[in-house]
């Protein structure tokens, strides 16, 4: 009887620990016009811990710390390589937009990566967001485009590649 009680207690503890340890791996990117109106701001928000593990795995390093400038810069370059906005017309992916990489900074448990685009977004566009999807198979990336009146969203998971959007 005593062993039975101990086993039940252990099982409950394990389930509790599992649900605590697993938040959904994901990122949120916001594309919107800046207050000055001249540029389009792209802000990627990632969990710091996910990003550190992801960068370490992707660069083949044992550990990373986003507290350091060099690793934040590595993360920024990593994100730049895996996030693209392209023109889209007649069912074809066109030219990729030249997004300028501004930098990255910590914000509590999150890390923010900044990109900027000078000019207007095309009315029809395609987005590709592979951030951390090479490292975490369950990674879900969400992109909100809020340049017009309404917020348009696309989500990337599994084998998703390009997703298209029409802006008004």
């Amino acid at each position, binding site marked *: 009887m005593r062993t039975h009680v101990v086993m039940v207690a252990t099982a409950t503890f394990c389930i509790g620990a599992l649900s605590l340890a697993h938040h959904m791996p994901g990122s949120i990117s916001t594309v*919107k016009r*800046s*207050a*000055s109106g001249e540029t389009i*701001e792209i*802000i990627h928000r990632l969990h710091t811990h996910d990003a550190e593990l992801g960068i370490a795995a992707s660069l083949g390093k044992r550990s990373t710390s986003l507290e350091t*400038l*060099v690793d*934040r*810069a*590595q993360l*920024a*370059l990593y994100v730049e390589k895996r996030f693209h906005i392209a023109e889209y017309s007649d069912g074809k992916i066109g030219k990729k937009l030249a997004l*300028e*990489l*501004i*930098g*990255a*900074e910590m*914000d509590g448990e999150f890390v*923010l990566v*900044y990109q*900027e685009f000078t000019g207007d977004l095309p009315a029809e566009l395609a987005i590709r967001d592979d951030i951390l999807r090479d490292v975490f198979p369950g990674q879900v990336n969400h992109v909100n485009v809020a340049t017009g009146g309404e917020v348009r969203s696309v989500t990337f998971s599994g084998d998703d590649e390009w997703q298209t959007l029409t802006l008004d």
Partner: protein
Amino acid sequence: MDFENIGGLVTPLPLLITYTDGNEEFMMIPAEIWRRNHLAVTKMLIRDQRIASIEVDPRRETADADFSNNRYPGRIDRSRLELYKQDDETRDMMADMLATLREAKGGEDKSARAVPLEPAGKE
């Protein structure tokens, strides 16, 4: 002026009134204004001068969770990215680091910053 209680917490309303000539007036409406209706209140303000704008809680004194809807006429606040860009030292250090890392990777892209190659003082 119509005020709406979106979050649910009854709070005093600190107001910054800016007149068309640039003068400012700070005014504190006590929380008692919510006593008859805790969801929406209207306050009439009579002044001799024309009012250019009104902002609720400009000194961040209340427990407001969303400061983006506190101003009439509305204004888009500066984003994190713009604040980041404003800090020259942080931005320069990041730009240098990005340039260094890009070069280390074979120099496929040096767009982060044009680094002068001539030593300083050499004409």
